[in-house]
Each structure stands twice: as C-alpha cells, then as structure tokens.
C-alpha cells in the first residue's frame, strides 16, 4: 500500500489592529445514525413526516414508559469508532443531561457524559496541495436528539414537533487541533465522507442529519505550539461555542466572524467571556445565547432507567471484519494501482458510488484515461444535467467501452466525445454505434493523404504562407479533419501535413 505523506497546512492568521492572531478550533459534530427506528423507541426516524406522527409514548415522555436501546444504533456507533481508528469501550453508560425546553418532553436528554462508547481516534484532514492534518478525536458518544420548535407559524405561539425526539445521534468530539475555517469545513467533510462510506450516517446536512457546534478561540503565534507541547489549555484564549451549524459555508463564515470579534475585544483590553453563541446568517454576526447560560448547569447523573451498556470484543471484531475499504486506503490504492494524480484520486473517492463506478470503468483498461473520462466528461455532463452518479444514464460498461475504443485507437478523442453524447442521450453499445454510424477513425494514410492533397491543391496561397510560418500547419490539419468528418487519426494527419508542407 502506498503511504501518502503530507506537509502540515499553515494555520490561518488574522491581522488585528495591533497584532497577528491565530485560531484554535475544536468541533462537536452531531451525526444522525441511519437507523429505521429511534434510539430508545420503536418510532420511525423518517424525515418529513406529518408533525408528531413519529412519536412513541417513550418519546413524548409519558409517565411509566421505559427506554429500550436499539441494537443497530450501538452497532453504528462502534462502526463509526472503528472507521475513525478509535478505541471502542466495551463498557459504557448513559447519563441524564437535565434542562427544560418545550421540544424536550423528558426534561432531560439521555447522553453519555462519563463513559462514552468510543474513545480516542483520529482523522486525516486533507487540504489539497499535498497538505493535511491529523485531527485527534476525543470521543464519540450516543445521545437522543431533541424535537423541533417552529417560531414563524403564529405571532404569539411556538409550534412544537416531536418527530425528531429520541432519534439517535452520535456526537463526535474533536480535540482543538483545527487551525482555520477551511480546515474546520474539511474536517466536517472528511467525517461525512467516512460515515457515508461506513453507511452509519447519510450526512445530509440540509435535513439536519449532520450539525456541528464549533468552539473557537484565538491566540498569538507560537502559543498554540506551547499548548501542543504541554496540553495545557492556559496557553490558549477563552473559547466560545457557536451552536448548531448545518452548512459548511456557514461554519467557515461563523468562525472567521467570531475570531474577529474576539480579536477586537482582546485588542481593546477586554476579556472574552466563555459562552454559547448563535451565528446569525443574515446579519453575518454571532450573538450570545443568554438564555442558555443559566441552563448550562445540566446536573448530569447516571440514568437509572438504563443499565450500563456492555458489548463483547467478539462482536466488535465481527463489525470490524465488515468495514469497507475506507477513503484514505481507497485513494492510496487508486494512486498506486491506476497511476492517478492525488487530485483525481480524491475526486473519484469522494463517495463510494463514484469510486465503484470508476473502478468498473477502469477494470482492465487504461486507468488514467478512465479517470479523465469519468471526471471531465461524465461528471461534467451529469452536473450540467443536474444529475449525479446515482441516476447516471451511462453504465460503467458503456463508458468503459468508449475508453476501450479510444485506447485501441478505433476512434479519435474528438469522435469519442460525440459517441459519449450519443450513448448518454440515446443509450446503446458504443462499439456497435461506432460500427453502425461509421465513426471509426481513419488511419488509412492513403485516404488521409488524398484529402490533404486535395486541400493543398485548392489552397496554393495558404501553402505558400504555411511554408514561411509553420504555425499555419494547424489550418491544414483542421481542414483534413473537417473533410473526413473528424474521423481521421489526428496523429497521422499531423505527420502527413508536416511532411507535405515540408516538401
């Protein structure tokens, strides 16, 4: 296996009025487990259902109802932990996090504060141009989601929908290893990619299936290195937590805005208060969630309704044995086996479907050529059509057929594009289409020569000019291509033109 080595990315530096400042960022990513039923009840997790229809009495916290854990959710948390090369805790436990809010009927969220199911792991976050950072994962725990309050349906009332109450979330907590807004977005992107590979979370941020709380602090250049050396947080500034971000773009904006706010405070001689803040997308500013402050005293205690969760190493090993090839490994393999560039390999391994498609196209064929066709022609065409690989009208066998025809020099690259368009819009077997529609490349130099001779005879003035200015040879190549309906082998035409004009 090819071992990819990277340089560390440079931390983002923001110039304040007085000094340069660096950012220190840690994330808590909430990822919804892709289960059918909720973490502790048999109600559906389906998005977009009628309000309050996916609610069991456990979820609405009716007296006497008891939670029973969904085994599939445990498995997905373990699977995610294994995918992040993390320690799996065979014994974990559930705690109650107590607070009052209309969308939380229990008055507490069942979570895992003291004994999470997954311990320390790491994620390689690539940032392009051969740079990447290993971001340490502190823990992953399972917890219940809350309901949803809608504030704009009535001027005086808030409307509450409990459908999301009790849906299983995995909270993935990073160490403060992230050094800029782009890195934060790339980290979320990488987690999303890994979980989609694993099938543990669908990563749909629009539906709120993945959301992030972002902890931001600032420090002077050099301080962060002291923190990394000693793991002593006193080298870092006071952090603020920006809650509930569900878009990569807003995560980046919010970090930048929040860092600038903190810099302005500190440079004016003030101190940053540790608090929870909200990012206001419209105003482009963060503001304090004062109401949350008092409630921050969550009075955690072990949930008496739930015994500790004990799992067996044997089961963990079974889950580990069913892990798919993960993005980093797949990318390294694509680079070594198919000779792809780092960039092409990244694009093709972005999701499992694209990677599988590419492999089917490249199987037994020219890998680089296959990558070019999948990335440039196919992805480009799909994008223009507002489609993606899941509803692609061209099968890998068809595209592979086109690639094979190019490799065999049966068709020229230009004709291949026409052929691709035919296959894309009409379907059919590429080899058969080429045969039936006479698209084969003319490599018969006799036919090309005849066409060229005719053009030379018809354009004596151009011939004279071309003899003085060799760049004009291209005009003759173009004319021959035109005369042969684009089917002439460009290499052969180039050679002949050079030969004839040189005479």
């Amino acid at each position, binding site marked *: 296996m090819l071992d990819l080595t990277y340089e560390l990315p440079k931390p983002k530096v923001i110039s304040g009025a007085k000094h340069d400042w660096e950012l220190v960022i840690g994330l808590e990513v909430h990822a919804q487990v892709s289960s059918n039923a909720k973490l502790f009840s048999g*109600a559906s997790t389906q998005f977009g259902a009628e309000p*309050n229809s996916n609610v069991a009495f456990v979820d609405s916290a009716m007296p006497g109802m008891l939670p029973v854990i969904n085994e599939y959710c445990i498995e997905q948390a373990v699977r995610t932990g294994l995918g992040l090369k993390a320690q799996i805790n065979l014994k974990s436990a559930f705690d109650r996090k107590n607070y009052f809010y209309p969308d939380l009927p229990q008055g507490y969220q069942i979570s895992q504060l003291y004994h999470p199911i997954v311990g320390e792991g790491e994620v390689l976050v690539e940032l392009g141009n051969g740079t990447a950072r290993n971001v340490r994962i502190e823990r992953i725990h399972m917890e219940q989601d809350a309901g949803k309050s809608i504030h704009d349906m009535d001027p005086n009332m808030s409307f509450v929908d409990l459908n999301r109450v009790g849906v299983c979330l995995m909270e993935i907590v990073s160490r403060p290893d992230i050094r800029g807004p782009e890195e934060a977005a790339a980290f979320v992107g990488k987690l999303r990619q890994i979980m989609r590979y694993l099938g543990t979370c669908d990563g749909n941020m629009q539906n709120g299936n993945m959301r992030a709380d972002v902890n931001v602090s600032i420090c002077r250049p050099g301080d962060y290195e002291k923190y990394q050396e000693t793991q002593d947080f006193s080298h870092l500034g006071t952090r603020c937590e920006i809650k509930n971000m569900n878009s990569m773009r807003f995560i980046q904006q919010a970090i930048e805005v929040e860092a600038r706010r903190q810099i302005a405070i500190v440079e004016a001689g003030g101190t940053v208060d540790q608090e929870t803040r909200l990012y206001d997308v419209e105003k482009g500013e963060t503001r304090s969630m004062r109401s949350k402050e008092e409630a921050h005293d969550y*009075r955690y205690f072990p949930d008496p309704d*739930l015994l500790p969760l004990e799992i067996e190493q044997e089961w963990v090993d079974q889950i580990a044995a069913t892990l798919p090839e993960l993005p980093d490994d797949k990318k390294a393999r694509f680079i070594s086996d198919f000779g792809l560039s780092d960039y092409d390999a990244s694009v093709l391994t972005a999701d499992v479907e694209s990677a599988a498609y590419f492999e089917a196209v490249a199987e037994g064929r020219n890998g680089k050529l296959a990558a070019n066709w999948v990335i440039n022609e196919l992805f480009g065409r799909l994008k223009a059509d507002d489609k993606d690989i899941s509803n692609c009208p061209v099968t890998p066998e068809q595209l592979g057929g086109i690639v094979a025809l190019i490799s065999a020099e049966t068709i020229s690259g230009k004709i291949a594009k026409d052929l691709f368009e035919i296959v894309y819009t009409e379907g059919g077997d590429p080899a058969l289409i080429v045969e039936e529609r006479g698209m084969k490349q003319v490599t018969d130099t006799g036919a090309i020569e005849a066409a060229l001779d005719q053009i030379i005879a018809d354009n004596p003035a151009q011939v004279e000019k071309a003899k003085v200015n060799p760049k004009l040879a291209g005009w003759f190549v173009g004319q021959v291509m035109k005369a042969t309906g684009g089917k002439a082998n460009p290499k052969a035409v180039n050679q002949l033109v050079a030969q004839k004009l040189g005479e």
Partner: protein
Amino acid sequence: MSIDQNTAAKVAKLARIKVEDDALPALADEFNTILGFIEQLNEVDVEGVEPMTSVTPQRLKRREDVVNDGNQQPKVLSNAPDAREGFFAVPKVME
C-alpha cells in the same frame, strides 16, 4: 459543603419547582442533611469496587431496529393544553 438559601433557590429554579422565599431555609437545611449523609457515605473505602447497577446480573435489554410504534398523533396531542395543525402550541420561545 453547605447549601445556603441562594443555592437552594437556584436548585429549585433549575428544577422548575416553585418555592416561596419563606420555605427556602427549611429546604436548604434538608439539602444539608442529605449532603451530610452522602459525605458520610463517601468515607467508605470503595477503591477497586465496581459500582453495583443491579441486584441480579442483568444485561441491558435491546430492541431490533424495527419501526413498530408511532402513528398516533391524536393520542400524542390529547393531553396538550393547546395543539394546532398537528403541533403542540406553546407560548412563544425564541432565542
């Protein structure tokens, strides 16, 4: 550790339990009695002893990932003081 009236008031507020001011001294006293007992318990050396979570050995009961509950909107809303268009309607709460 000693609980004063302010702390007792704060705990009551966090638990959303209304306690009149004149009841706070007695409440603080009760807390102190409870905490005193816990301090006494803390004197027991439990080094290396696993916390006991059930009297008889039991494994946390699990369910399969099957949807077999829900679809009972009218029942879910039946105790709500106010419900509209399938939602619980509550006094406006805004961040």
